[in-house]
């Protein structure tokens, strides 16, 4: 951490970056939040530890629009979500300096965050400066997804319908997701109304299905959607189910390979037709 702080100080000083996006601790409350660090200030408040849950990539597009060059502190999972951003021309690599840090896991509500159990890489795949230790990771197991998969279709629907019905459609999940950046979200469209504006089960179901599908092969499991959901809808389950599916179907783990094109737009004539068949119950 010290090393990283020093590096960032140096980068800011010699103008290699205009601002740095990192985590700031409020010494009074002990709270840690995303913030922008500038040249003329001390980096004493900059921290990196298990409290740094937020994915900073979501703030990048606004910052790169305002500054020429932005440094960003990246955990493994956040780095994965950056891959999609770069491939989809949302951010130009030349405008950012990636400061990867070996993540030891983050904590939410006093215990290790769920997503860390399924961590695919603790070091960002895109990195300019590397700090801390890079660990060999096992493939995610997605045990909760498997639990759902063991249920009958009716049980599964009951499980999800209960959650979907609670959705208020505040779109916090959309707003926090770095990969949800459409100019006009399909949920806001009138022509036609694929998703009706009112918060009711049928429209909420459409919203959650479409949200999950649109992230298929792009979601890097940073878990922010689920974290910010005021109704505690388990959105990571849907994301993970598709992450698992994409891996099983196409052998791809989204975001782990720089410059990899999202699997849903890859042309592969050799896909077997069996991928179109239903899985056994």
């Amino acid at each position, binding site marked *: 951490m010290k090393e990283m702080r020093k590096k960032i100080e140096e980068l800011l000083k010699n103008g290699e970056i205009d601002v740095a996006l990192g985590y700031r601790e409020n010494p009074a409350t002990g709270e840690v939040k995303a913030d922008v660090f500038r040249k003329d200030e001390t980096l004493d408040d900059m921290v990196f530890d298990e409290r740094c849950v937020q994915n900073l990539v979501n703030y990048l597009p606004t910052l790169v629009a305002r500054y020429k060059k932005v440094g960003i502190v990246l955990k493994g999972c956040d780095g994965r979500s950056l891959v999609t951003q770069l491939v989809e021309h949302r951010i130009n690599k030349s405008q950012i300096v990636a400061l990867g840090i070996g993540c030891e896991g983050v904590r939410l509500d006093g215990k290790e965050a769920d997503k860390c159990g399924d961590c695919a890489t603790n070091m960002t795949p895109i990195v300019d400066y590397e700090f801390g230790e890079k660990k060999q990771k096992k493939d995610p197991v997605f045990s909760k997804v498997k639990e759902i998969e063991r249920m009958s279709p*009716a049980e599964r629907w009951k499980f*999800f319908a209960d959650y979907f019905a609670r959705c208020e459609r505040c779109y916090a999940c959309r707003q926090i997701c770095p990969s949800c950046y459409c100019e006009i979200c399909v949920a806001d469209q009138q022509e036609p109304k694929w998703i009706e504006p009112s918060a009711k089960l049928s429209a909420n179901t459409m919203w959650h299905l479409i949200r999950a599908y649109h992230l298929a092969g792009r979601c890097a499991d940073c878990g922010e959607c689920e974290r910010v959901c005021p109704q505690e809808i388990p959105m990571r389950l849907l994301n993970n189910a598709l992450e698992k599916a994409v891996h099983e179907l196409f052998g791809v783990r989204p975001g782990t390979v720089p410059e990899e094109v999202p699997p849903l737009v890859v042309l592969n004539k050799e896909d077997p037709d069996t991928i179109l068949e239903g899985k056994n119950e």
Partner: protein
Amino acid sequence: MQVEKEPKILAILCKWCSYAGADLAGTSRFIYPANVRIVQVPCSGRVDPIMIFKAFVEGYDGVMVSGCHPGDCHYGTGNYHARRRIAVARRLLEFVGVHPDRMHFTWISAAEGKKFADVCSRFTDELKALSGTEKTLARKELAT
């Protein structure tokens, strides 16, 4: 009314192969259940899974999508892209509780009128076998 009891099927067919196949089923007078509603799209590559989601929410019992056989796409590669998309959409729908037998994704060429009729009949039978189970996702009235 009898028609109401029949499971309702939405068939999204590409214009060049599968829709022509459905036409051939007609020209050849192959009888199949009257509950199939065909939507023509230019290519299976045009099929956005949102359409499939919507169909289930709107209360269809089953959805089938069909295009040209791999390699035969009129537009070269549309069906390969469709295959990937639909494979993922199917996993998602199954995950939230749509019974796997309610989805049928296949390739039907313009020459396969018989196959189209057979698929429709078989699919209808499969859906009838599911008639006791819940039609998940389907909304019931305006407010849900």
